């Protein structure tokens, strides 16, 4: 996950922004404590959303306490007080995802990056071992999705739906961990699936040009082979906008059925405005190039 699912700050109330930041800081602090300060580098806003959603469903409201930021000791930050299962699971997920991402990069990237990744690898492998022990469920899910991703990428007529499935399924499984209400599980599964799909498509749109140049796999490549020659630029932007909108719209439908206990404004901000704004940003960035 790459930080695509984030809040749209201009529309966020100040109190909600504080909570949002607090949750981000909590996760960051947890990573530092549970793993190492190095682990904090892998944190992204996607995981903040994951934690926010999980906390919005739990019966107990998290309590915040004042703290100082390790990276910038002059800044005070609020973090969750006490132990929280959701926090632990999300921290483990960050590490496990980072681990597989780095393995992926070692195979895919150019020589210079490859060497850099090889230096990072032993450290992350050590942390991954711990995460695997603490959250075997998450590890299994992500390992499986990685395997499935590999096999879909070799499939000749792999469309965008099929290519997005492993990521979508993985998020769908992770998002439901720890939930016991059967009805909520059905809704969460759908929401997770669609958000995973959205992230995957977003990434594919973002990377299309590089992937064409470097001859890497990209599900959009079949349809838009000429994008970097600017032949199909407009058509591509419109198509990207449409598939992302459809996915986000379906995700919103699912979210509406989810009975959450708190943080409604922040979650709505992320799903209604945040997703669309990120999509616009990425697509407009293309237009300028």
């Amino acid at each position, binding site marked *: 996950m790459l930080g695509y699912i984030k809040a749209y700050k201009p529309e966020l109330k100040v109190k909600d922004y504080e909570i949002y930041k607090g949750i981000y800081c909590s996760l960051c602090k947890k990573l530092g404590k549970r793993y190492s300060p190095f682990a904090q580098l892998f944190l992204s806003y996607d995981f903040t959303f994951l934690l926010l959603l999980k906390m919005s469903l739990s019966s107990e409201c998290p309590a915040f306490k004042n703290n100082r930021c390790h990276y910038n000791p002059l800044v005070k930050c609020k973090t969750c007080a006490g132990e929280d299962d959701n926090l632990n699971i999300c921290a483990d997920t960050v590490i496990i995802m980072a681990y597989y991402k780095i393995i992926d990069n070692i195979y895919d990237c150019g020589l210079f990056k490859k060497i850099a990744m090889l230096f990072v690898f032993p450290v992350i492998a050590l942390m991954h071992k711990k995460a695997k022990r603490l959250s075997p469920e998450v590890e299994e899910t992500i390992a499986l999705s990685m395997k499935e991703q590999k096999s879909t990428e070799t499939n000749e007529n792999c*469309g*965008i*739906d*099929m290519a997005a*499935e492993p990521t*979508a399924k993985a998020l769908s499984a992770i998002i439901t961990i720890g939930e016991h209400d059967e*009805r909520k599980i*059905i*809704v969460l599964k*759908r929401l997770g*699936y*669609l958000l995973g*799909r959205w992230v995957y498509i977003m990434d594919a749109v973002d990377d299309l040009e590089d992937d064409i140049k470097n001859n890497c796999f990209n599900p959009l490549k079949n349809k838009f082979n000429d994008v970097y020659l600017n032949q199909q630029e407009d058509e591509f932007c419109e198509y990207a*906008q*449409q*598939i992302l*909108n*459809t*996915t*986000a*719209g*379906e995700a*919103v*439908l*699912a979210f*509406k*059925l989810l009975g959450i206990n708190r943080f409604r404004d922040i979650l*709505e901000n992320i799903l*209604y*405005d945040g997703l*669309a704004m990120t999509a616009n940003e990425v697509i407009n960035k293309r237009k300028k190039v």
Partner: protein
Amino acid sequence: MQNPYDVLGLPENATDDQIKHAYKELARKYNDDNYGDGPLSGIAQEKMQEIDEAYDAIILNRGSSFGSEKAQTPSGDNYNFNKHSRSEYNDIRATIQSGRIDDAQTLLDGIPPAMRNAEWYYLKGTVHHRRGWLEEAVKNYQTACNMDPNNSEYSAALNNINNSRSGEYRTEKSGNSGCSSCDICSSLLCADCCCECFGGNSMFCC
């Protein structure tokens, strides 16, 4: 049973108007039209029933002071699979309805391409929709509509999924009242009028 006020998300001392408003808001949210025959339609219906019951309970409690005007809610007949009694695909419809999506897909794929009619494409679209394969779903619904443009069931499904395609889902966010370009222009005109009273002039055209 849950406290009916909790279901509507209101405190117990809410006014009658607040209750009506909350009920209408929720009824709009869980409206069957939004969920069609997607994977969450069952849950949407359950939620609808819950708020209906909560609303009824509150009316009973508050007595006659309360005008009982409920929002018109569609009964969902449009989407009821059983309505189509002469369908050749009844068994497949039943399979989809019971949530056995993989089985339904196998059954559908078993039908030879030459025999695939509009309904086949519609059902295929439904299966894809439920799995979250939205692009395939759109494609199949589109084919079904092209083959049988007069069928309301197919066009409803297509409209449903196409609704969000242009980003329309964002307009329905609760309490999303921004400042439109009209507001900006009219405010500017007003400001200019005030300005001109004092001798200044920010817009030379008027």
